[in-house]
């Protein structure tokens, strides 16, 4: 049986209109939704490439299942109102929700208190040693060795692969949904909003945050980026900020371009 044929029931036409009106967008059908809003990326944003001034989406994602949903990251506080409205639209009333944080950094976790206050968040999954600002949800800290992954049933009926990438600043998880093929990549693959060429040559613009690469042997990191995508037949890459990449071929192209950029900037 092909697990990717299993889909949760789609939204009614009314709910679909409400989802669109709230600004949530489907990443992959009715399975994965992209929430959030745009920011201005300029010299006031630390991950802005030199000479760039543009808008960029800051994203979090909802993975829908039969018995509940999983929210991957919670967006920036600037977008709290939008994200709460989008969750209202995407989730059924009373729907169970689990939250997965790809990092315990500010753009990932700061809306957690507001989300907990409005929705029934039963657990918060995260990695690393920093506490998260949750209140009543069960904290589920998970440790995954860099370069490996773990399959976790985050909520009844939704098993996600927690990928621990070598490309990181801090403890980081990439989340792979085997059902849809979506790979949610946190602060990697963030170059989709910048100047780009068809073969993905803008990938280096997504490395501004990773300045340490220039002092490091990055070959293993680059190989890890490529293998994570190649081994999973990724159908969509959803970064924490930046436009997503859709389609197996496009994801492969972008991972190859990002890996090449990582190799080029590093010490060989």
């Amino acid at each position, binding site marked *: 049986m092909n697990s990717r044929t299993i889909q949760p029931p789609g939204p009614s036409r009314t709910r679909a209109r409400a989802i669109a009106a709230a600004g949530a967008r489907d990443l992959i059908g009715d399975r994965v939704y992209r929430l959030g809003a745009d920011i201005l990326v300029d010299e006031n944003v630390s991950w802005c490439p030199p000479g760039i001034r543009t808008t960029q989406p800051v994203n979090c994602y909802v993975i829908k299942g039969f018995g509940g949903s999983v929210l991957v990251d919670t967006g920036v506080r600037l977008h709290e109102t939008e994200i709460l409205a989008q969750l209202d639209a995407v989730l059924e009333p009373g729907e169970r929700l689990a939250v997965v944080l790809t990092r*315990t950094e500010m753009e990932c976790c700061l809306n957690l208190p507001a989300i907990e206050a409005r929705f029934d968040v039963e657990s918060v999954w995260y990695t690393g*040693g920093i506490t998260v600002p949750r209140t009543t949800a069960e*904290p589920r800290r998970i*440790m995954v*060795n860099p370069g490996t992954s773990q399959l976790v049933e985050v909520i009844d009926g939704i098993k996600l692969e927690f990928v621990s990438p070598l490309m990181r600043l*801090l403890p980081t998880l990439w989340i792979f949904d085997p059902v849809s093929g979506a790979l949610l990549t946190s602060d990697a693959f963030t170059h989709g909003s910048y100047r780009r060429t068809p073969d993905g040559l803008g990938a280096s613009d997504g490395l501004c*945050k990773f300045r340490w690469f220039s002092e490091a042997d990055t070959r293993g990191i680059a190989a890890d980026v490529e293998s994570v995508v190649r081994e999973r037949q990724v159908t969509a890459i959803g970064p924490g900020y930046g436009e997503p990449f859709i389609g197996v071929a496009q994801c492969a192209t972008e991972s190859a371009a990002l890996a090449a950029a990582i190799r080029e900037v590093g010490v060989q």
Partner: protein
Amino acid sequence: MEDLVETMSTDLPREVAPGVTWMSSCLPFHLADRVIHGHNSTYLVQGDHSSILVDTGNPSSWPIISRTLDELLQGEQLTYVFPSHPELPHTGNLPRLVEKYPEVQVVGDIRDYHLFYPQIVPNLHARVPGDSIDLGGKEFVVVEALIRDLPNTQWGFVREAGVLFTADGFCYMHRPELDDEDPVHLPGECGLTTGELSVPIAVENAAFFTGSALYWARFANDADAVYDRVLHLIDELGVTSVAPTHGNFISNIRDVEPIIRAGHKRAYRYETAQS
């Protein structure tokens, strides 16, 4: 279920240099086979007419931080907050600090803060390395962070006290249990300076933190270059003590620097169960 609770050491707060008070809460980390502790420190620098809080502590530690500020400031307003970089242990209490002290100026590299804390935008004031802030009889100087994870990290220095605030630099873990093979800190040592500890910092513990929090050290074999630059900065500024966020206050920097450097070297190609 793991219960993550920070507690203020009974030995703290304490004045560790003239006008510099060390406040800290300690966070237990539950590993597969043991429990270790990590400091999550904040420092209050008080001059004749102004004060600056270096880092804010985690949101979960707000009640004890707020109470301690009440005791130390004795009714005065906090003038400045210097969040070294935008991570929860360093900035997580910014909204509460602004609510408690509406006129407080948040100073430093403030890139991204408008996204994370839009409610404090009026309080944000950008500072770059070399800028100084007059506290009255003391000056807080913004310094380039030579060891960091996030790009928008800064260090600070108070010349009159000789204290360099290094955020995630010069950090290390400690755990309170004695272990025959890895003797580290005894219970009750959380509030001691490194010069007061009966057992030196273990290189392995420095490596553990470096490999986990300064992940790049696993791939960059540059410890000597990094710490040579740090030593140059220490000489240039006249640093006598180092105040890290995650570790005991370092009162004997010349003794401790080689240990942290060795830990940094050991972190290269380091493997841990920490993701």
